[in-house]
């Protein structure tokens, strides 16, 4: 069973690499934010997997819970911050 | 803060206070996993503090029977919602791996007016729409005007449809 968990963890890390491309190369700041959010939600699953591999789930699950909450707050704060920065994008401003 | 509805429920030690206290206490017990007197006492103390500060705005302004009925109907709504999310997820997953994806998607902004008239129902409907893949609530007003971004035609034609009926059923009676 450990082999399955290890393979799943490596696969998740590769998926995070794919999302990292969007976080680095995204045309707008919000694209980068989507990439970071996707990496964060994969990290939550990865933390529990690491706990299963090391047979210490009871400890790692608390870290995963805290990380899920932190990921949410980080995305919320970043998007609240960037929406005030008008003219940050290439596109001309349309009235909303 | 004074509210016009149901003053007995929102008072300091009313129903809302005790519901908040019990939920906080259960969360504490599950998260700590220690049941001796010292740790349980600490949990009771902090739950009391949270409920003391924050307890008056938890329950909707209705009687105990109505509140419990709404919670029960909401609990029955959640499995149906998860089933809908599962179906829509498969649809978006197939769309993602389709080589001719750029020709199949058709992003549009859809507006509609909901007939729900209470804020909690609108809140649940907006979150359910966002949680279902293929549709994202861009804007929802207090009066029930929704603006939704949809990814393709199949996601767009199901709006608001059955989901609104289900949400309305939570709050009737």
């Amino acid at each position, binding site marked *: 069973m450990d082999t399955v968990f290890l393979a799943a963890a490596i696969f998740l890390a590769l998926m995070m690499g794919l999302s990292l491309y969007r976080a680095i190369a995204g045309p707008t700041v919000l694209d980068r934010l989507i990439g970071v959010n996707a990496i964060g939600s994969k990290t939550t699953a990865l933390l529990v997997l690491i706990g299963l591999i090391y047979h210490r789930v009871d400890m790692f699950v608390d870290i995963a819970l805290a990380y899920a909450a932190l990921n949410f707050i980080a995305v919320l704060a970043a998007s609240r911050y960037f929406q005030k920065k008008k003219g940050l994008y290439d596109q001309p401003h349309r009235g909303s | 803060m004074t509210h016009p509805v149901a003053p007995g429920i929102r008072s300091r030690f009313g129903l809302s206070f005790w519901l908040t206290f019990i939920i906080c206490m259960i969360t504490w017990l599950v998260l700590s996993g220690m049941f001796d007197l010292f740790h349980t006492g600490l949990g009771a103390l902090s739950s009391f503090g949270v409920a003391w500060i924050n307890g008056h705005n938890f329950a909707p302004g209705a009687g105990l029977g109505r509140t419990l009925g709404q919670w029960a109907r909401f609990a029955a709504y959640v499995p149906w919602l998860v089933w809908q999310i599962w179906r829509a*997820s498969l649809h978006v997953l197939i769309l993602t791996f389709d080589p001719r994806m750029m020709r199949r998607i058709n*992003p549009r902004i859809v507006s509609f007016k909901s007939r729900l008239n209470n804020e909690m129902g609108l809140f649940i409907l907006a979150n359910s729409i966002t949680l279902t893949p293929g549709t*994202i609530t861009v804007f929802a007003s207090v009066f029930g005007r929704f603006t939704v971004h949809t990814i393709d035609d199949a996601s767009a034609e199901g709006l608001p449809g059955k989901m609104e009926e289900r949400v309305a059923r939570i709050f009737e009676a």
Partner: protein
Amino acid sequence: MMAVLTTLLLTGGLIFFLGGAVGILRFPDFYARLHPAGKLDTMGLLLTLGAMALYTAAGGRLGDWLTAIKILLIVALVFITSPTATHAIVDAGVRAGLSPWMREDEGTEHDLAA
């Protein structure tokens, strides 16, 4: 038996994660990218964490059950917070004045800056 079920659920969840990652790369603009990013990841998290909760609860002791409940608590937290995070990103885009990518009649690609 439990190992087979766990592996199946885990594989399903990883397929959803793969769909989320590929969708983020392939879709044309960031409104469309939010559909795979927010939702397929949530679905993948539900399946993978459900598998791990099953595997943990199969241990049978009280501590194992509490850990399984904690894992399900993560799922509940993500299901509550995911729509809010998605809506915050959409709202930021709308207020910054980004217009969504729309399709022209003949399927020609619409320029983002139009």
